[in-house]
């Protein structure tokens, strides 16, 4: 393995981590601030991808399609919030898990009914469809760099929002001491809706950004959801900073594991054993990482301090 390959794989891990961050950021806020376990958060990712794909195809323009797709995904998210989630926020965690699991089933099959089971594709914008040579023999798609850039911009904006604005202050306060905040005359319900809408928007945006790289199908949000949970748990629930660090960690560990686990094992094991065990270990790595982090720090890396 040479240095440029390692660097390239690190870049791949970074890009993967950014997508995870966009999904996890909303999840951790909704969970941290509203104390609401939303399994249907992955649905927003899927909706973002599907709706952007169909609007981009209709308008034949990426920016326009993205805007319309996000708006539509958001509208559906708000609809779900009003019809289902608003009631669930007042229920126990177990009922939230059950109810939002039901929402996943409904939306997944509804998408299959409407769009058919065939995977959809999303065309990336012309301007960013090129690639630059980063390594001998391999072009690095500009789109992946655009995802990294978008992730960094969102992370920065979120940090500014949470750390520097009045709304951010209320969000931080709301997650640690809800009673006091509402006693101060803040409309906590409106704050919750705001947080929810923002989280849903980020997840839909992640789906739209990942769309051109993935095949768009009804269950695409499932695995992203589980990984997003891994991320927010490692990072500490409610912590944006934790979600950012953990997302990049997971992205890097997963990508580097897939790229090098078999090769590393070959140094100590026979070739046959290494190629049997390598993929299994690569798949397991992120869960091993989560177990190690939680055993050492039972509330995650940045847990217990509210949004930070």
């Amino acid at each position, binding site marked *: 393995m040479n240095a440029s390959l390692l660097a390239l794989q690190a870049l791949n891990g970074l890009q*993967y981590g950014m997508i995870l961050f966009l999904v996890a950021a909303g999840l951790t806020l909704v969970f941290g601030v509203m104390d609401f376990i939303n399994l249907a958060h992955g649905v927003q990712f899927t909706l973002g991808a599907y709706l952007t794909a169909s609007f981009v195809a209709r308008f034949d323009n990426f920016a326009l399609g993205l805007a319309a797709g996000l708006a539509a995904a958001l509208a559906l998210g708000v609809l779900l919030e009003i019809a289902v989630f608003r009631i669930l926020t007042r229920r126990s965690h177990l009922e939230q898990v059950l109810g939002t699991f039901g929402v996943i089933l409904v939306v997944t099959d509804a998408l299959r009914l409407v769009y*058919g*089971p065939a995977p959809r594709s999303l065309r990336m914008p012309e301007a960013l469809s090129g690639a630059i040579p980063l390594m001998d*023999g391999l072009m690095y798609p500009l789109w*992946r760099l655009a995802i990294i850039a978008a992730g960094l911009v969102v992370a920065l904006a979120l940090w500014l929002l949470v750390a520097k604005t009045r709304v951010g202050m209320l969000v931080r306060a709301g997650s640690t001491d809800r009673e006091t905040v509402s006693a101060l005359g803040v409309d906590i319900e409106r704050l919750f809706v705001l947080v929810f809408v923002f989280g849903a928007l980020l997840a839909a945006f992640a789906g739209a950004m990942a769309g051109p*790289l*993935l095949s768009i199908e009804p269950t695409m949000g499932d695995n992203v959801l589980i990984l997003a949970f891994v991320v927010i748990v490692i990072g500490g629930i409610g912590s944006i900073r934790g979600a950012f660090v953990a997302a990049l960690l997971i992205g890097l560990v997963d990508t580097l594991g897939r790229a090098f686990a078999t090769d590393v094992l070959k140094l100590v094991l026979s070739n046959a054993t290494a190629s049997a065990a390598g993929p299994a270990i690569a798949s397991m790595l992120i869960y091993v990482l989560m177990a190690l982090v939680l055993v050492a720090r039972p509330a995650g890396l940045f847990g217990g301090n509210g949004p930070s």
Partner: protein
Amino acid sequence: MTSSFRRALLASAFVAPALFGAAAQADPVKIGFLSTLSGPSAPLGVHMRDGFLLAVKELGGKLGGQPTEVLVVDDELKPDVAVSKVKALIERDKVDLLAGVVFSNVMMAVAKPAAEAKTFLISGNAGPSPLAGKACSEYFFSASYQNDQNHEVMGKYAQDQGYKRVVLMTPNYQAGKDSMAGFKRHFKGEVLDEIFTPLGQLDFSAELAKIASAKPDAVFTFMPGGMGVNLVKQWSQAGLAGKIPFLSAFTVDETTLPATKEAADGLLSGAEWAPNIDTPENKAFVAAYEKEYGVAPSLYAAQGYDAARLIDGALKATGGKTSDKEALRKAIASAPFKSVRGAFKFNTNGFPVQDFYVVKAVKRGDGAYVTQTVSKVFSQAADAYAAECPLK
């Protein structure tokens, strides 16, 4: 939206009259059709089902002149779910025949209960090696191919092209390992790396970087369904298309081409069928399928279509009776139908002896992407396991 929605309606509308017909007629033929209709691999199962139902429709809702009821069930790509659904078809619905099955792991799970119940099972796609060899069964016939064969085509092709160093990449499950074994059966050059990816992985950035740094003469891969769509798109985005020959099987076909479009242009695959195979049956099939469903058929559709026509021919030979198992077996084994693939006969293990081609993805005049034969690699080829099968 509308086309697939209409298709679902059509499928259910089609089963309904068949059910009413069943009530009126004394002894309808019941066929249990098992397919993968949910999850990322659903398009394969939908094509296979649509091909089968199209043939039944063309025959006036009758197979072998008998009113026919087709019970379509979704195996969800879960072997245990498939077992319980097959048991339901046999024990509750008392089907006369079973057909379908896209994936080999599902097939391995359902072949045994089907054989134990002495119910014939006509594969519309999966052809795992045990069923062709030691575990072959007189109740199993394949209207498709043996799993290794389409991979063997690519191995032979790579060998003939003089490629010396290749990288192989498949999902980490039995069919993936079989695929590599099939490729290596005729390829004698050096295999630089065998990359196993988790089944269902959708981002191949890490693997592509690895492949690019290995600089092979060619890459061979087997990535069915959504995995193939992503791999092909990312392959093209990474600028590898045109630089490193991309050989595949069950990766670039009419189920994935609508999503990959120009990214797959010119990519080569191994297959036993393509829409341009020049037989009157095939021309009629392709035209009818496109008219009915609005998309180009894939090899899964062709196999489903052939499976229905095979059953039709066999039932004609037995006078519509399914009770005499030996007579039915003899009738099926004689392959009494005209395959859309042209020449087609059964080997002693119940698998076809047929031609295999290298096919290429091309853009058709109307803008649709389809596969097209490039050259015939094997003529009237049998599979590698038939000798191990004790049946004669």
